[in-house]
């Protein structure tokens, strides 16, 4: 059965019947609608072969082979959606879009603010086509303001909203968080916003427009530092791995080349247990370190002692010995080792998908588990234009002649 139609199991999914027309691209947007697709929403995702999603050319790639259908990142963000290709510069494409808007409950887009207006698909125009439509517009800086049209990726939103400066070592330039950091925060807020708007429509029958600036939502992940600035006038910055409230707290050298173990002690009991595991009862008895206040004041000395012990142990050996005594500790897992992480394996975090060129590929599972209506990953990689026929025929009810006309007019490209 084509993906556009619901099987019996699909109709039991939590979001069965929710229809999303998705113009979003890159990471933050697609990460949001992936959550909806996992739980049964029908997400029709519009792209163009002439200018496809940038993320299709960002790794990791299946078998190290760059190509628009081979990006593990793209597949991970878009699995379960119905990918169609439309050349929006063709007038006939506008008609297809209008039909899809009539079908949809929710329209999502993550272009810079002027783009949707230029195509005639801004909220006011969509509302004329479908009065109760819900539209989510999400871009880096928001739909208004002097920087509204500043386009870009999450590394830029992370830089401009203060995420780089507090990441790294105090005696060096900021290291910055990995990659496009705010792109990993925004999906939670985008998805919550769409669902809240669906709830509002359930109560009142009304749609609405949501303006979600990636930078503004993400700032809530810096809120304690922002409040320190506004309430105390103090500017917090990077402090390595140290913590305002806990010590010892760090990433320590383990035996092996570039191997590390993270330890974050949050109580006096954990501190004494750490000393016991390290055979350093002298430290455990030392009055200076008995309270967190004392430990915070003597971190260099503590870190030195811990490094001496950890450097004699492999990262997983250190983790096992410390966790056996309830000390918060973990090997710093490499990206390759994460696939072997016993907990992620137990939770079924890695899911195989069919892939037309490689036989199979792998994506991540939903990040939460529902007891009654679990996520279902629909099993084929979202290759370019894979669902053109399905969407036009089964969702829009176009006949063969009409579809052929669109093909001939080069609209489906």
């Amino acid at each position, binding site marked *: 059965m084509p993906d556009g139609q619901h099987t019996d199991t699909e109709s039991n999914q939590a979001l069965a019947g929710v229809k999303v027309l998705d113009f979003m691209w890159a990471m933050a947007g697609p990460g949001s609608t992936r959550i909806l697709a996992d739980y049964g929403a029908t997400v029709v995702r519009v792209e163009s072969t002439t200018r496809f999603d940038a993320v299709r050319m960002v790794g990791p790639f299946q078998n190290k082979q760059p190509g628009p259908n081979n990006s593990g990142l793209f597949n991970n963000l878009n699995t379960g959606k119905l990918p169609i290709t439309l050349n929006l510069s063709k007038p006939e494409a506008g008609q297809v879009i209008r039909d899809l808007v009539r079908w949809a409950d929710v329209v999502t887009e993550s272009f810079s603010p002027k783009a949707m207006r230029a195509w005639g698909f801004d909220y006011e125009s969509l509302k004329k086509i479908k009065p109760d439509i819900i539209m989510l517009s999400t871009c880096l800086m*928001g739909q208004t303001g002097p920087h509204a049209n500043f386009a870009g990726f999450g*590394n830029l939103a992370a830089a401009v909203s*203060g995420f780089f400066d507090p990441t790294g070592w105090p005696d060096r330039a900021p290291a910055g968080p990995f*990659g496009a950091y705010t792109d990993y925060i925004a999906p939670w807020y985008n998805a*919550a916003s769409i669902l809240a708007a669906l709830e509002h429509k359930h109560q009142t029958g009304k749609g609405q427009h949501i303006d979600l600036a990636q930078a503004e939502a993400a700032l809530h992940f810096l809120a304690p530092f922002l409040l320190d600035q*506004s309430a105390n006038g103090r500017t*917090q910055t990077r402090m390595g791995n140290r913590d305002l409230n806990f010590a010892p707290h760090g990433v320590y050298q383990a035996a092996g080349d570039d191997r590390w173990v993270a330890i974050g002690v949050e109580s006096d009991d954990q501190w004494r247990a750490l000393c016991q595991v390290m055979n350093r009862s002298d430290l455990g008895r030392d009055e200076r370190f008995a309270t967190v206040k004392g430990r915070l004041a003597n971190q260099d000395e503590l870190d030195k002692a811990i490094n001496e012990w950890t450097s004699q142990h492999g990262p997983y050996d250190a983790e096992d010995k410390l966790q056996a005594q309830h000390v918060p500790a973990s090997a710093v897992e490499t990206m390759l080792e994460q696939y072997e992480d016993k907990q992620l394996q137990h939770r079924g975090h890695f899911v195989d998908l069919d892939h037309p060129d490689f036989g199979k590929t792998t994506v991540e599972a939903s990040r939460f588990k529902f007891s009654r209506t679990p996520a279902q990953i629909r099993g084929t990689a979202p290759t370019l234009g894979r669902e053109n026929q399905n969407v036009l025929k089964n969702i829009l009810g176009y006949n063969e002649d009409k579809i052929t006309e669109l093909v001939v007019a080069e609209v489906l490209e």
Partner: protein
Amino acid sequence: MLSPYRVLDLTTERGLLCGQILADLGADVIKVEPPGGSSARKLGPFYQDQDEAENSLYWWAYNRNKRAITLDITTTEGQEILRRLAKSVHFLVESENPGTLAKYALSYGDLAQENPGLIYVSITPFGQDGPKASYADSDLIILACSGPLVLTGDEDRPPVRLSVPQGYLHASAAAAPAALIALYESHRSNKGQHIDISAQQAAAQASQSSILCAPLHEADVRRMAGGAKMGPLAIRLLWPAKDGHVSIAFLFGSAFAHFTKRLMDWIYEEGGCDKEVQEMDWVGMGGLLFSNDPKTVEDYERLKLIVEDFTQSRTKEELFRNARERGLLLAPVTTIEEVTHSEQLESRDYWTSVNHEELGKAFRYPGPFAKFSERPITYRRRPPRIGEHNAEVYTELGMSDQEVTELQNKGII
């Protein structure tokens, strides 16, 4: 939008953000704290550095719009009261170690018997089951085994985290859309369910799918100051400016080429590179770079130096102004203080004043995470003081003033 719904928020610092997102969206969120206050109130920074429960800026950051009661759920009487409360709520959010609430007969199964519509959300480090389910945890532990840590930092120092703890923020933000998916479903089934959130799986989103390197047979990804190492490739995102740093998505391929061309055009105009460099094939370079073509990798290294020479002789403001005018993927690295003075955030009225009447002062908080056209988010209540709404909430439960006083005397509330 969520004003018809009531939420019991039993979380510690691991899960406060979930309830706050629901409260911002209009739900009546009742924060349940042990007598004496939540452990989150012990987390600094503190207002005026006064280490007291009502002054924790961490508490302020994640509890606005909630009401607060105290209740000792380790006593049988306290458990009985919680069961009564749970009969009349739509959501319960908790973040205890797996099995803890079951000991008090407050598990999902226990409460759903009386309230089958209850949506019960559990936020834990590793999920409810599996080999690490009972691990001792802290923020660093989550980051060590979900990806962000190994990907972040200077190559010659230990992996490093963002100085505001991020692991549980991902988990508790993820919990909000999860709860709302279950709400949508409950309109059809009249049933609630249990939602099991793992911080490890939620924070893994911040690996930008690098977690899939092993199953995709890709090269490992490793930390690098201001960028990342993808196999032998050193992808650089951070550049020096005259007065700090800027982040540039200096990338190639069809999606990035036009941005990179505009940057190189500007550098050429200002005499920073020759014609041959300006006219390089920025589209083709993407694929070649990711296939580790030796000549392209060499070119990339040379280009990085050209860009560096150019940026380090200009101020952040000059670079960002040109980025906006010319459409470049470039943004300044801002300090926390600079964020609070952003002209963009100012023009969107982002910062929201919250009055703390007992301190005789209002404070600027990070503003609504999105702008909703139908029901804008408002900040109705400052973060609650310990037990501030005991009388109000317990009276709503049908208790007499006398009963409330008795419970107070016994230390249960």
